[in-house]
């Protein structure tokens, strides 16, 4: 964030804050509880987790045996883990693009309305606030193979019924649909903020410059100006989708036959069901590494976000 950098530079040159002439002891006192918690609940556990990933520790055992990169070697040879990784990426590839496009579509459509903007924003944002676990129950019933309203609808239209969570083919897509439903409204709000930031007279200038059709103005003005927001929404949606856990834990438990095994759920089972802490830690390290890549991309995107202004 360049703005922050320049500010801190100018401050170090000429200290303007009165705090500088006060005893820094006050500042340490103010920060101490947070620093303590930061060390105890974030830093130390992460260090321990990384160390743990080089052991074969199982919960309940008394001794700890170092096995080097044994856990990692085993992970990538493990078909279950590879499947979980693959499922997670497939899930992200379904959720992120669809929720971003749907969010953009909703935001643009609603922004063009002269009446009812508030009403639609309310409707589409409602799933964002709903408790995922509760809504997962509803969706499970909704898509139920025999008694679910969705299938009753298909049958009444003379179509074959679909057992979404009963078969391997559609289970992951079914979970993705739930996430798209709950994420689209979130993305819509971010895009709406981006749209209101487009100055009105830019559209007027575009009209003067010969962009007569809505489509011309959307392509030449709206879309390029939403570019930075779009990048940002893509990254946050990717991160959100990557952390999928609740729906898997409630609806499918990773099934049927591993079709919805995802990274966090597999790690959870490994650590807290089978209590194989060592290999669970190795999985967590892989998960954290991927998160760090996303975070790095996000930071780059944030840099670009300031660029136009």
């Amino acid at each position, binding site marked *: 964030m360049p703005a922050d950098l320049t500010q*801190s530079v100018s401050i170090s040159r000429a*200290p303007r*804050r*009165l705090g500088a002439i006060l005893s*820094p002891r*006050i500042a340490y006192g103010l*920060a101490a*509880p947070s620093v303590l*918690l*930061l060390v105890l*609940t*974030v830093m*130390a*556990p*992460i260090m*321990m*987790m990384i160390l743990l990933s080089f052991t074969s520790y199982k*919960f309940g055992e008394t001794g700890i045996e170092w096995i080097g990169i044994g856990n990692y070697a085993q992970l990538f040879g493990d078909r279950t883990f590879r499947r979980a990784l693959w499922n997670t990426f497939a899930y992200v590839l379904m959720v992120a693009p669809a929720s971003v496009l749907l969010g953009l579509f909703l935001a643009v*459509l609603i922004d*063009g*309305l*002269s009446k009812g903007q508030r009403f*639609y*924003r309310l*409707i*589409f*944002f*409602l*799933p964002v*606030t709903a*408790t995922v*676990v*509760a809504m997962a*129950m*509803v*969706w499970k*019933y*909704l898509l139920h193979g025999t*008694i679910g*309203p969705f299938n*009753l609808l298909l049958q*009444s239209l003379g179509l074959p019924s679909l057992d979404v969570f009963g078969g391997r083919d559609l289970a992951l897509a079914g979970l993705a649909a739930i996430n798209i*439903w709950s994420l689209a409204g*979130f993305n819509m*709000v971010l895009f709406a903020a981006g749209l209101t930031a487009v100055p*009105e007279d830019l*559209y007027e200038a575009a*009209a003067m410059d010969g962009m007569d059709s*809505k489509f011309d*103005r959307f392509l030449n003005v709206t879309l390029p100006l939403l570019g930075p927001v779009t990048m*940002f929404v893509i990254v*946050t949606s990717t991160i959100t989708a990557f952390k999928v856990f*609740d729906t898997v*834990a409630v609806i499918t438990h990773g099934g049927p036959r591993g079709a919805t095994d995802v990274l*966090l759920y597999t790690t*959870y089972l490994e*650590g807290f069901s089978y209590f194989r802490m060592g290999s669970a830690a190795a999985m*967590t390290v892989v998960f*954290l590494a991927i998160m760090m890549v996303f*975070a790095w991309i996000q930071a780059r995107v944030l840099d670009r976000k300031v660029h136009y202004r």
Partner: protein
Amino acid sequence: MNRPHRFRPGQILSHVILLFLAFLFMFPFYVMIVTSVRSPAELFVPEFRWLPESFTGLRYYIQAVADIPALTFLKNGVLISGGILIVQLLTAIPCAYALAKFEFRGRDLLFALVLFSLTVPIQAPALPLFLGLNAIGAIDTYFAAMVPFFLSVFAIFLFRQTFRTYPDEIIQAARLDGMSEWAILWTVVVPGCLPSVAAFSIFSVTAHWNDLYWPMVVIRSNDLMTPPLGLAFFADSESGANYGALMAMATILTAPLMIGFLLAQRHFIRGITMTGVK
């Protein structure tokens, strides 16, 4: 006001599309509520009916409150997300104030650690935290359910940004008036930054009310279950047969946040999306 791309036929088409999508988006909520008030026999009729044939009224709601400890889950939800929020505010606000308005050695390092921790989800420190809590015999307590969230680096980051824009002159005037730093922070600066505090509070309560992962790790007994955990546990143990009671319970446990949202839409939207906008 008169953005040139607003004209009538397009308006009508937009409304048609949006109303259709709105219907799809609302359908799960409708199913949840209508299922909670219809008799189980109707569920197995091979045809979807919009309204219940026999209205069961509040029967399942009473059942959810009486037989299943829905009220206990609600209470736990309030205690845990409320407790987390209070400690988060008490620790993050002073730290953010120090980062925003003081110069001290290690400040940049501390802020760098805060920025790094922003990207760390709860799942990363979960295993060692579980082991540590187990070692001190704290598994299956409120404390265990709350402790990983006592520190909110997001709150520190957010409040630091807010406090930085708070005018130094007012703080200096308060110092000249003889107020202590602690008093300045809580009686001068924080009241001036209430919108940020409110937005963060909504964000925090929503996140922890809805969280399933960590309660699943550390909570064992029914008495301590949070709404999502209780719901998930109940769904599994009933093997999903009693849909009426399940939907009634889902309605009860989702209701507090939904009502909050309907009452304070703008604050909610701001609070929940602030991770994205900032």
